[in-house]
C-alpha cells in the first residue's frame, strides 16, 4: 500500500443519522446529524493534499456512507507541483522542453518513483521552495539535485 493509500485508509465516514426539518419549499430537508470530516493535520502537506480528495456518499442499500478518496488525483497534484518548481527554478532556458521535464511527465501512480516524489513534495512545501527567488539558494539546488539523482537511478 503506498503512502497516499495509507493516509486515505485512516479516514472515516459519517454515521447515517439525519436531522429532518421543513424546507423553504415545503418538502423535507435532511441534514447529517454529526457530519464527519477528516481531522486537519497542519504540519503535513501530503496529508493535506490527500484530505482534499476525501468525500463520502450515501449508500441506501447498505445503510451507510461509503468513502471515496481520489489518491490518483492527489498524486497528480503532487507531480504538478514538482513540475512547476522545476520549470520555475531550473537554470535552463527552456526547462519544459528538457529531457528531465519529459521524464517527469512520464511518472505514474504506484510507480517506483512514487515514494521519492511524495518525499520531495513534502520538502518543497515545508521549505516554501516556490517562494524562493534566488535560484542559487541551497534548498532550491537540493530539489534539482534530488530530481537528477532520481532520474539517474530509475532510468538505469
Amino acid at each position, binding site marked *: 500500500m503506498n503512502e497516499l493509500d495509507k493516509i486515505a485508509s485512516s479516514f472515516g465516514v459519517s454515521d447515517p*443519522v439525519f436531522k*429532518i*426539518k*421543513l424546507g423553504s419549499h415545503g418538502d*423535507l430537508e435532511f441534514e447529517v*446529524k454529526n457530519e464527519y470530516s477528516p481531522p486537519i493535520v497542519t504540519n503535513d502537506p501530503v496529508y493535506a493534499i490527500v484530505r482534499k480528495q476525501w468525500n463520502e456518499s450515501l*449508500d*441506501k*442499500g447498505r445503510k451507510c456512507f461509503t468513502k471515496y478518496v481520489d489518491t490518483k488525483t492527489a498524486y497528480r497534484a503532487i507531480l504538478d507541483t514538482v513540475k512547476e518548481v522545476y520549470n520555475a527554478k531550473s537554470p535552463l532556458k527552456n526547462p519544459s522542453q528538457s529531457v528531465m521535464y519529459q521524464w517527469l511527465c512520464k511518472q505514474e501512480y504506484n510507480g517506483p518513483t512514487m515514494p521519492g516524489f511524495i518525499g520531495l513534495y513534502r520538502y518543497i512545501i515545508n521549505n516554501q521552495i516556490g517562494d524562493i527567488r534566488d535560484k542559487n539558494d541551497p534548498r532550491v539546488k537540493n530539489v534539482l539535485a534530488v530530481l537528477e539523482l532520481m532520474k539517474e537511478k530509475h532510468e538505469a
Partner: protein
Amino acid sequence: MGVFDDHKLEKLDWMTAMTETIESHLNDLLSRLPDRTLVSPQAIIEASSSSYLSFSVRSAMHELNRQHQREINYYLSYEEERLLLECFEFQVTGEPELDLRTGTLTGGTIEVVKIKNAFSDEELQPIMGQRGLEELGRGRDYTGPDAPFERMNEILDILGGCQEALSSRSGKKKINAIRDRLKKIFTTNEWRIRDMALADKVGKWVKGYISEGNLADLTNLCKLKVMTHNNMPIYSVKEEQ
C-alpha cells in the same frame, strides 16, 4: 325519462343546483384521504434514491394513494396531481432524526396534514375536460389520404365557431381547431358543463367518432349540444353505448 333529461341535476340539492357547483372526482378523492397521516421512516427510505434522502409532499401523496388503493382507482393527470398536492403540507413536531441503520425515526414526528377540504370552481374550471382532450392525440395522427376529413368536419360543425378549419384541407389543422374550440368551451363555461367526468367524456366521444366512426359517441355529443339550449347547467347525459 326523456332523452335529454339530466338525471344528475335532478338529484342535486337545491343549493348545488342554484350555484352550479362543479362536481368532481377530485373532491371525492380529497374527502376520502385522511386529515392527518403519520409519515413512517420506511416511507421516507423507500421514496429516496439510492444515494440521496428526499421526501416531498408528492412522495407522501403516492404513499397515501397506495395505502388507500381500494377506495381510489383513479389515475391522476399532471394538473390534477398538482392541485391535489396543494391541499397537503408537512407538519414537523419536535426534532425528528432518522437513523438509516435501524430504520427508526426518533425525537419528533412528521405528519402530512390536509390544509384544504374541497376545490373551488375557480380551481377546477381550468382543468375541465383535459383528460378527454389528451385522448385526441397528436395532429400528425390525422394526416394522410385516409384521414377522416368528413367526420372531422361534422364535429367542427357541431362545435361551431370553426369556419377556417372547416375550409382547410389539413387534417392537422382540423384536429387542432377541434382541440382549441373544446378548450375554449370548457374554460369559458360556454356549454355550462358542471361535471368533470362528463367534460372528460366529450374528448373521448370526439375521438371515438373521428377515429372509429362510432355513432354512439356522435349521438352523445349531439345530445349534449342540444342540452346546451335548455339554458340549464349540465351534469349528465343519457349515454348511448
